[in-house]
């Protein structure tokens, strides 16, 4: 095992996969000469060359559209969107083309395509650049939506995404690129569609993913000091959504909190809660609680922005509520 950052984990996965398979190439804004807006592809251009590390115009439909076409024709493109906020500009190609083509043409077209997109709030970028719209993309059958919360998962899941023959939206959170974690040595792949228990506990099931994994673990740590044992389950992908470990945990704890960074309404928490009520209604000892972003466009002002974003304290509070 070695301690590396989230950024390094993602970068390593890309690098190792590109070394393994010549069909893999990267395209996106500033991925080459600049070295990646978040420096994920730093050094790639020198090593892999301009054919495989392609700077594009600022034209997200062209980026995703061209990636789709190249994937159809046998390549394995990894398209980088500078931020997930720009995915809306390419929305048709993501949800209406990539997610549909295998099905709509009767299975004859394959799209081994990854779209990497960092998102998340908390960097004072104001409303248009700070969103966590993950749930929107998870709405569409045909698209896989992966959103890891630890370096180990990021590396293993990105490799799985690149090796998948289906289109994958790989959502990163830009505020945790510096977060460190232990990563196994060598080549490993984590299958898409398996939730993971990140911390065991017997009092409350805390379901989360992406950036909120660390927040949830911090909350669990604090609560442990009071003897409250929280089980933290990381969904790791929103579609496929692996509810099995969540339901199993809930049947032991009978209480659940769901923590996500995106907005509350129609969010991941709503989906998970609905499924828990349906699959394990007889086990419910308290109303399931959701922790999420307040229903406002994120403001620039630092204090206001932090007020809108879910905090560790909000998670602790919600856990206490379900234990009442």
């Amino acid at each position, binding site marked *: 095992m070695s301690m590396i950052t989230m950024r390094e984990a993602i970068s390593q996965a890309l690098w190792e996969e590109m070394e393994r398979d010549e069909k893999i190439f990267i395209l996106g804004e500033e991925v080459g000469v600049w070295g990646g807006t978040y420096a994920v592809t730093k050094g790639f251009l020198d090593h892999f060359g301009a054919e495989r590390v392609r700077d594009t115009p600022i034209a997200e439909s*062209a980026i995703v559209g061209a990636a789709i*076409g190249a994937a*159809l024709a046998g390549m394995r493109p990894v398209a980088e969107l500078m931020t997930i906020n720009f995915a809306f500009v390419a929305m048709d190609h993501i949800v209406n083309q990539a997610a549909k083509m295998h099905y*709509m043409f009767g*299975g004859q077209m394959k799209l081994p395509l990854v779209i990497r997109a960092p998102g998340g709030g908390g960097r004072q970028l104001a409303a248009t650049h700070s969103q966590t719209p993950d749930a929107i993309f998870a709405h569409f059958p045909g698209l896989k939506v992966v959103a890891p919360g630890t370096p180990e998962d990021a590396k293993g899941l990105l490799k799985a995404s690149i090796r998948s023959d*289906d289109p994958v939206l790989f959502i990163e959170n830009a505020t945790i690129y510096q977060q460190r974690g232990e990563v196994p040595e060598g080549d490993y792949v984590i299958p898409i569609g398996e939730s993971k228990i990140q911390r065991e506990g017997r009092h409350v099931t805390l379901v989360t993913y992406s950036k909120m994994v660390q927040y949830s673990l911090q909350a669990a740590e604090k609560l442990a000091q009071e003897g409250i044992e929280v089980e933290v389950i990381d969904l790791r992908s929103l579609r496929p959504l692996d509810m099995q470990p969540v339901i199993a945990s809930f049947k032991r704890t009978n209480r659940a909190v769901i923590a996500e960074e995106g907005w509350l309404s129609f969010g991941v928490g709503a989906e998970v809660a609905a499924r828990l009520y349906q699959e394990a209604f007889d086990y419910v000892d308290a109303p399931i609680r959701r922790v999420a972003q307040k229903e406002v466009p994120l403001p620039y002002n630092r204090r206001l922005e932090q007020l809108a974003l879910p905090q560790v304290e909000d998670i602790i509070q919600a856990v206490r509520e379900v234990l009442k």
Partner: protein
Amino acid sequence: MEKKEYLELYRQMITIRRLEETAAELYQKGEIGGFLHLYIGQEAVSTGILATRQPQDRVITAYRDHGVAINAGILVRNVMAELLGKTTGCSQGKGGSMHMADVDKNYWGGHAIVGAHIPIATGLALADQMEKRAAVTICMFGEGATNIGFFHEGVNLAKTWNLPVLWVCENNRYGMGTSPERASAVSAIIQKACGYGMPAYDVDGMDVLAVKDIVAERLEEIRAGSGPQFLEICTYRFRGHSMGDPEKYRSPDEVKKFVENGPIDRFQKYLLEQGLCGQAEMDQIMQKVEEEIEQGVKFARESPEPEDAALFEHIYVDDNQRGEA
């Protein structure tokens, strides 16, 4: 060109015509659902475009796609079966009229979001360039598609990377009911190619041989590394945009003018005049086409409906989940 090649073009054009007329009848009877966009009047366009393409050349088009399907080599019966939503359809009954494809024939669809397939064509050509294949991607779209952002993003990138694409604007004069004069900053669509530094040509889309010849030249140049080129083909659709078109945007006289000088009549006349084909031979070809259409309808009608299980098939290649998120 040999006589049999002329006759093959003729056969394809009347196959499309009769296929579309038959589809219209089946639509009226309720056997075909959804939208139906007929290619009647535009047969010379796709027939001419595909006449000289090599097997490695890709073709991708918009939703008025039955003609290209026939020219690409999909059998009438598989087109009919798709229209009737059967498993024997070229997209297994999941795509319908607007989403026909056959990847083995390098026909990449049938795309129904206006212009969205244009950047996808850029990507198809990118793969060929990266893999050093001597292939050209032929991307067809209507003049209406040149007003949407996808067009500009797609052609800009293709030119920036010098990709082997032939952009074919099939100008049938109306995007639904709106003419370029009412929707485009420049009504001469060909001018739009200048902004992207592409060689641009136009041709009469009612003349199958003219279309064939100019496309052959363009394909040769692009294959030799010219980068993308642009071709505007002027044509006219004889029927409405789709089956429910009140046609308030054009006069019967205007339609009549084009119909009287239609691509099939014109080519028939040419074949007879040039002595490439006699009336008897022409009738014989028509007879065979009629039989093929008739058998195609029979095949489509008798083909099985998809099983319920097909609902959850082909959502993903990696079959680790079916239907549920």
